[in-house]
């Protein structure tokens, strides 16, 4: 009887235990299914597609170490070095100059200087009567490539340069440097070279990259400390680097009842602007158009100056001139490149003549002004063309030579062709018909390459940062492709700069620039940008809360039981 009762209790206990066990196993297996199947499934189905980006390479780019190398050939003309010195002339020298812009960006300027003596042909060329002629014949002797320079050291006694001029900078990539007198230079070659070095550097600063240019080009990457007013104005004047520019000439005729204006813009562009743009073709694509706007007024009422019986516009009011006109200029419908506006304003008959006064209350001789990164305006007075007896409307032909001269100067400034004043003792050759010397183009190419690289690296690094921070953004394959191609082009551009291949460096930097812009402004990046978390939880909670609470509770219970049992066992053992 006792045995039977005991057996019954035991079996009951056993059933109880196995029932508990089964419940625990069921809870555990449900939790396992949820964790092994449910969570990955949910994760996979709600995941956004993010293509792989070359993050490590991008991070490497954020620390920009650029090296600009320029090849310089120093040619000694006869009479500058003695035959003994000639034998000892070193073949090459390398001058390095460090330029740390900030902790992330540092530059190294490297000049590979080659020394040699002039050939017979070059001697002949240097014996030309004028510096310009010598420059031309030196150019025909050797084809120089982008970014390289040639400096011809001519004897003190040479008659090529006027008395007070020591350095002549030609239209191509050559400069003539007058060696100092024997006494100053010293007898040995070392003395000669040490004497030449600072002067050569001065020449190279003018004809090739200089610190200020490169710092200005890096302005996108490095916040320039507010230096002097002038340099900031200089660096802000030119347009930012872009794959293309639209140049628009507008003739403003506020008074079509009095003036019938004719301008031969096709001819003017062909003669004056096109040669410059052809020369600048490696930098960017340019497109030109023109229009005539009638009843287009300036925003300021000019003041009548009785002393000169003319109307005047003061320099401080010029800022307000453009705004009403700009509303009529029209944005460019066909492309998104920056527009350079050049306005020719012919004042109406009642307000003629009209002159611009500068800050010193002096009449501006060109009667024109320009606005940084916008364009230029020229005022063209026609009242002296009326003749004695005037009957309105008057037919007026606009002299394109006068107008285009001003616009060309403004265009050079706005495109960043720097015409910094050369140091004393320098003579710069006048522009050719193209309006641009070869070395000026090189200078522009140096700074544009650096600017493109700086802009592209900033764009790519900030894109990578953005994508890293916001996990919801879908990264499609085409964006990853653009980013990779931008990174590759950037690396190539940096390498080419280092090797001194300026043309290729510019080409790659342009590619990098456009690829990075395309990637950054891709519309697909905006799709799921703003999907707030609180809404996501509002959707998930009704499903997840009732499902997860029992699982969690039973898991907790199992845990506590386990702990209890262990404690019991410990107590028993003790």
């Amino acid at each position, binding site marked *: 009887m006792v045995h039977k009762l005991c057996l019954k209790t035991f079996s009951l206990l056993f059933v*109880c235990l196995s*029932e508990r066990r*089964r*419940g*625990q196993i*069921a*809870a555990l297996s*449900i939790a396992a299914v949820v964790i092994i199947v449910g969570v990955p499934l949910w994760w996979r189905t709600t995941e956004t597609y993010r293509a792989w980006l070359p993050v490590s390479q991008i991070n490497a780019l954020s620390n920009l170490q650029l090296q600009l190398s320029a090849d310089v050939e120093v040619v000694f003309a006869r009479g500058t070095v003695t035959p003994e010195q000639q034998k000892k002339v070193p073949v090459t020298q390398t001058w390095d100059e460090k330029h740390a812009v900030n902790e992330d960006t540092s530059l190294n300027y490297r000049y590979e200087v080659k020394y040699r003596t002039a050939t017979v042909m070059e001697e002949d060329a240097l014996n030309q009567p004028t510096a310009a002629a010598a420059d031309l014949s030196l150019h025909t002797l050797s084809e120089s490539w982008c970014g390289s320079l040639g400096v011809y050291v001519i004897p003190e006694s040479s008659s090529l340069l006027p008395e007070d001029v020591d350095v002549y900078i030609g239209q191509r990539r050559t400069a003539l440097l007058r060696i100092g007198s024997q006494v100053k230079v010293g007898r040995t070659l070392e003395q000669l070279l040490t004497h030449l070095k600072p002067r050569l550097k001065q020449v190279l600063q003018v004809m090739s990259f200089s610190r200020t240019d490169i710092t200005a080009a890096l302005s996108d990457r490095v916040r320039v400390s507010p230096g002097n007013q002038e340099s900031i*104005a200089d660096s802000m004047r030119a347009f930012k680097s872009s794959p293309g520019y639209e140049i628009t000439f*507008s003739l403003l*005729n506020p008074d*079509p*009842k009095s003036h*019938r204006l004719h301008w*031969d813009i*096709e*001819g003017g562009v062909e*003669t*004056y602007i096109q040669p410059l743009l052809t020369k600048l073709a490696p930098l960017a694509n340019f*497109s030109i*158009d*023109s*229009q*005539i*706007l*009638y*009843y287009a007024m300036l925003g300021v009422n000019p003041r009548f100056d009785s002393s000169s019986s003319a109307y005047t516009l003061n320099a401080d009011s010029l800022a307000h001139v*453009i705004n009403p006109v*700009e509303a009529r*200029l*029209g*944005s460019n*419908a*066909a492309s998104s490149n920056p527009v350079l506006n050049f306005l020719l304003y012919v004042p109406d008959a009642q307000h003629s003549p009209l002159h611009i006064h500068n800050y010193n209350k002096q009449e*501006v001789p060109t009667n024109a002004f320009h*606005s*940084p*990164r916008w364009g230029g305006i*020229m005022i063209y007075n026609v009242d002296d*063309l009326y003749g004695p007896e005037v009957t309105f*409307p008057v*037919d007026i*032909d606009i*002299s394109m*030579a006068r107008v285009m*001269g001003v616009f060309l*100067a403004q265009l050079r400034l706005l495109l960043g062709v720097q*015409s910094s004043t050369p140091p004393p003792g320098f003579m*710069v050759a*006048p*522009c*050719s018909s193209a*309006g641009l010397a070869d070395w000026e183009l090189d200078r522009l190419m140096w700074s544009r390459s650096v600017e493109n690289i700086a802009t592209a690296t900033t764009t790519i690094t900030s894109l990578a940062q953005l994508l890293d921070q916001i996990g919801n953004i879908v990264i499609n394959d085409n964006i990853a492709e653009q980013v990779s191609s931008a990174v590759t082009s950037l690396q190539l551009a940096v390498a080419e700069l280092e090797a001194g291949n300026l043309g290729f460096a510019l080409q790659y930097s342009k590619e990098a620039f456009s690829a990075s812009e395309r990637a950054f402004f891709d519309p697909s990046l905006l799709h799921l940008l703003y999907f707030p978390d609180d809404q996501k939880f509002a*959707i998930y909670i*009704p*499903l997840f*809360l*009732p499902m997860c609470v*029992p699982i969690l509770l*039973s898991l907790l219970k199992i845990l506590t039981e386990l702990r209890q049992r262990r404690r019991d066992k410990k107590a028993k053992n003790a």
Partner: protein
Amino acid sequence: MAAHRRRCSVVLLSIFSLSLINVAHSQETTAPAGQYVSASVDPQTETAEKKAEQPAAEGRWEETEVGNMDLGDAATETPDSLSHENVFSPSVSEPKHDFREELVIRPLHSGDIYASFQFRTLWKTNFRENKVSHYRLFPKSLGQVISKFSVRELHISFTQGYWRTMQWGQPYQPAPPGTELWVWFQDSVTDVDGTWKKLTNVLSGIFCASLNFIDSTNTVQPSASFKPLGVGNATDHRFLRYATLPREIVCTENLTPWKKLLPCGSTAGLAVLLKSEKLFHSSFHSQAVHIRPICHDWECKATSWELRQTVNVVFDRHISAQGKREWSLFKMFSRTLTEACPLASSSKIYVDITDSPQGEQLELSPPTSLLSQAVALGDRRTFSVYDLKQQSTFGMTHSLNLLIRWKSNEGDMLRPLLHAERYVAGYGLHMGEIHTLMYNNHPYRSFPVLLLESVPWYLRLYIHTLTVTSKGKDNKPSYIHYQPSKDRVRPHLLEMLIQLPPISVTEVTVQFERALLKWTEYTPDPNHGFYVGSSVISSLVPSIVAMDTNMTQERPLFSSFFPNKEESTYFTRVYTEPLLVNLPTPDFSMPYNVICLTCTVVAVGYGSLYNLLTRSFQVEEPSPGLAKRIANVIRKMRGVPPL
């Protein structure tokens, strides 16, 4: 069958290639009482003006120094450019640019008034050559669009209100309510759809309209209804795109960029009258831009681009004129005219006085002795002409305030020969039926019309239910072009050539099923309904002049036996009303409700299942009865062991 269809289409093509719009194609002739109206073309070199959206540039202003620039050699290359200064050369004999403006005022029989502005800019250039960049009178923004997208013809209209053909007669420039855009591309374009997409986006920026909503779901390629209006024999409709946005609302923001395209802007000339506060306070307002290449001379050796900008307005008598039958420029536009645009070679106002050539019913002040006759819309009309290029028009006050006064209310309007209407029939939200009615009011002639219907994909047309009946009998269309829709890709396109018998109503019906859209596809106000663009009826209508059989008129007998060939038919386009169709609209809070409900159901089901699976069942000692428990308590108090 196929051969038959091809023959039909060939016939059609020939019909419509012949028919260029002759709207307001003013052939000025001398009227008996009038003087000669001469359009002298002033040789001027002029330009165009521009729209702009660029924000003003902030910046420092610097004087320009022409530094060490030596333009010496550049200038010597063109020695003649300097010598040109101070020479008042006479302008070129044949102008490359021409601008004309005109305003036609037509008093309507209802007492309302119809004013139609047209501004035409001609620019002599080779339209096939894409490299054009120097603009004078032609607006730069449109010129750039034409050359960038290789557009051959571009027609865009913005209309507010519906033109009531029965009350007002035919308009000079018909346009459907909302926005209509149709473009012929040059045959050099390879990716027409891509170019069309970019073009609509750029136009949307230029005209501040929602043209960027034009996509493949509302674009069709009509095979016969829209033929090029300019020169060139391209009729391959692969290069044609047609789209309408019937819901588009037209307002000031569309008018301002439109006015900027005019050479004189709104500063001088007829455009002074275009003030939006009055223009949009009207029963009907339609503005349009038409660009096409046309012949510059008779032999068509040279071509020009023609830009026609039109504004058509109907002012309501009761709203704008306090119910009086008296109109003046000031009353209509709250402005008077003081000058013509100095750039215009011709600037005229025409007032349609056909109904009272001697001033029996209409009185004009100031009176004008200039009369002009023109055949417009198949009818020979007489117009009084005010030439704004002549100072005398403005009189002593130097301002022209044209006054039109009705003397009597008599006179009947001739019923328009062709008009149409359309409605949706049916009940419920499942099926429906589109009815299009076309009226031929000609007493004895039947004529063919081309009907174009473009229906969005969410109305699924059952094309087997298409019936065409006139006078109770089945009217078999001689040409049917039907392109079925694809969901979310393209709309239905139905084009039919139907012969309309005289004095008849032809009814075209087709049934449709309403689709259920995805919830993101609904417009912000889905209960308002969905618009279906107007159907377009293009036709060569027999002209009223040819219909005239009255031989008692003072006309030479020799001219009146055979109907005049040129005037026997005229081309017109009639637009029906757009349709407003209700689609089954869900409750938009539904997704969240559904989520919550489903989740609750799942949670309840899951919860009980989980309970069943994990709960362990134990046998519990049955608890003693209540009486026993009370007895036990008492026994405990007594100190007796419990039961």
